[in-house]
Every structure is written in C-alpha cells, then in structure tokens.
C-alpha cells in the first residue's frame, strides 16, 4: 500500500523527466506544477474543474489538474504544454488565430493534442464533446474548431 502521511519528498514524471518535489498529501497537482516546478503553462481559471485552463495529460488523457491530488499523479506520465514541442496543434492555433488573450490556450492545446492522438479521425460529435470541456472567452470557438480540424485532416503538420 502506498502511503503518504505527511509532507514528503516524492517523484513526479513530468514531460518525460523525473522531478523530486516536496509535497503535502493534500497538495493539488496544478499548484505543484506551477509553484514547485515552475511549469506555469497550466493556468488556474476556476479551481473547480469547470473551465479547463489547467488541463494536462495524465497517461495521455486530459485531466483538469485543479481537481487532481499531486499524490494521485505519482507513477503516472504527466504532460504539460511545456512538453509539447512544435506539436501540429500549436502551429494550427497560430495559423487559425485560435487565441486572443492566450490564457485558455494551453488547456485547449492539451485537449486537442490528446484527441488527435487517441481519435485520429473522430466524428464532429466527438470533437464537440472533447472541446466542450474548456472555456474560451475571447474567440468564437470557430477558430479553435478550424485549428483542430486542420490537424485531424493532416493539413497542418
């Protein structure tokens, strides 16, 4: 049985690197990433799982890191936006003007990236379902839809 009864040093695998961090068992993954590892790409927007700005990938699936204990992430592969290097979706976002203020962008990128990896050819309903997990307040979403469709259709690599 894994037990973490007090503030302890643990190992986290983030963006394919091992990190040692000192955490409380009650610490939230979002803040461990931001404050201890300096990975500020995941953004707090609601602290309640409603906006998706803090989305990271855990073993390839999107997770709202504001609703995950850091302790839960031990032994898992975490990917943050800093771990995306020239992913097609990043290029597509720029080409399609899929962001304005940019605050929601990393969360959207992570959802799109995971979607493209898991469902290379999804029907529209699946695209809608995945991307409805996030909120963008600047764009009309149409631009974000165009960006993910460019990636899925292979016209943005």
């Amino acid at each position, binding site marked *: 049985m894994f037990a973490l009864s007090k503030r302890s040093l643990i190992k986290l695998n983030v963006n394919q690197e091992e990190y040692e961090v000192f955490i409380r068992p009650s610490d939230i993954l979002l803040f461990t990433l931001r404050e201890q590892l300096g990975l500020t790409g995941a953004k707090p927007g609601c602290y309640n799982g409603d906006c*998706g700005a803090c989305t990271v990938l855990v073993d390839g699936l999107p997770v709202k890191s504001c609703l995950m204990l850091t302790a839960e992430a031990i032994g898992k592969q975490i990917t943050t936006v800093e771990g995306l290097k020239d992913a097609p979706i990043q290029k597509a976002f720029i080409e399609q003007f899929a962001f304005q203020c940019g605050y929601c962008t990393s969360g959207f990128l992570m959802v799109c990236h995971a979607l493209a990896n898991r469902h290379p050819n999804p029907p529209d309903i699946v695209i809608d379902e995945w991307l409805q997990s996030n909120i963008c307040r600047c764009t009309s979403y149409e631009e974000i839809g165009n960006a993910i469709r460019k990636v899925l259709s292979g016209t943005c690599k």
Partner: protein
Amino acid sequence: MIPFDFEYYRPDTMQEATDIFRQLESEGKTPVYYSGGTELISMARVGNVIFDAAIDIKNIPECRVLEYDQDNNLVLGSALTLSEITESNQFPLLGKTAGRIADHTMQCKITLGGNLASTIIYRETVLPLLTAESRAVVASHDGLREYPINEIFNQRLNLEKGSFLVKIVTNRGFAESPYFHIKKTKNEKIDYPLLTTAGIKVGGMLRIPFSGLCSYPFRSMQIENILNDTGSFEERADKIADTVSENILNDTSGSSEYRKFVLKNTIINVLETMKDV
C-alpha cells in the same frame, strides 16, 4: 488549494483498504474513501467537507474490473471512470448517461462509484442501474456483500461506515435492452439536469427513473404503472406530473412549474420514441 492537511493512502487490496480505514478511525481520525476525487477536492477547497485521511481505492483490482462473469453478468468496477464505461460500450444506456455527466475531461476522472456516492443531488448513473435491477457489491471489514441496487440506493447510496462500493453487477439482458436517455438542462448542454431520465423497455413495459426532478434520483412503480397504462400520451403525462407535483425541485436551474412542463414533454417524448420498440 485545500486548506487542511490529510493523509493519503492507496491500498492495493480491499482488505488493506478496510483495515486502514478501521485503523485510522481507532486513532480518532476521520478517513474517507477517495475515488475520482473531483467532488471531494472541490468541496474541500471551499470548506464544505473536512477529513483526516483519503483512502484512494483506484489501485484495487476489483474496483477496476470491466468484464462478464461466469453467469454472463456485466461487472463494472466502482473506480472505472465514466469515460471508460462510455468507451467500452458494454452497457449502452449507462455509457450514454455517463457521457452526459459534467464534461469529457471530467469524465476521464469521475468514477462510477464516485458519481453514485455523490453528495450533489443528481447521481445520474444510478438511473440505468435502477432500471436494470443491478446489484452492488460492497466491501466492509468482514468481507464482500451484494445488495440489490434499489435496496442500497434509496435517494442516495447508503453505505455503512467503513465500507465502500467495489463493483456493480448487471444482467446482460438488461444491459442490452432497448433504452432511452433524455437530459434536459436550463440552456447549456453541460449542466446539472433540469431533468434526466434513462430507462429501458423490458417485456413491453417501460421503466422510467428520474434525476433532477426531485431532490434525489428515484424510480417509482406508481409512475411506471401510469406510464404503461392505457390512455393518451398526454393524459398519462398529466397524471404522472400530478403524482410528483409536490416534490418537484424549484431552484435557479428551473422553477418547479417549468420542470413540470419539461416532465410532461419528456414523458410524451419517451412514449412516442419507444412505442414501436
């Protein structure tokens, strides 16, 4: 940020889980079982719940099963995520219901057991289970016990202290029955329900449970008797609305009068779509 400290345990067996629960209790601590954690974390953040230890059951193999047993029953572990259930497509009605709870990313974290044991009043995953006469397998210190879902779930999941839900067992015939799922919200697709129903047709009879209509999810024989009775669809809808009238929720999602209107429409809708099934 959760403004209090707690201990975190991730047992590998059911026995370890119930043992550590007992041990912590004997030390005067308040442990909780922890599955997807989304609700616990959001409630803990605003001080609506406080505990001394979280016992994460996601590593217990029995809580993660997704299989048919030797009696051809579908067995779903309580720590399966909603998205795992939807993607498996083994219990289409449950998959459909799970696919309309919160949003997709959250469905990758929320678990079946967590939704059933939720303090938020909707607990929509219970609707398919109520109609399919599923059975709940519960672990406690003295071993496993199986309960019919309608016994252990009365308005909410009633577990004895120290016990936790391990899996849900459902007859394959029920799991594959023709079904309907309707979720009505205030306006936004991703929202708590004004009303959700998720039922099946068995032996020519419709089973119709509700969430969001009252302050708890339920299935009512009285309603189903009216539903399966004769009379025009409108008459049956009116009668059903009258029987629940006094208990209909009234909140910012919708007034009780409006919910009543939505209820009637939904019943007519169900009767129409299921009439030739």
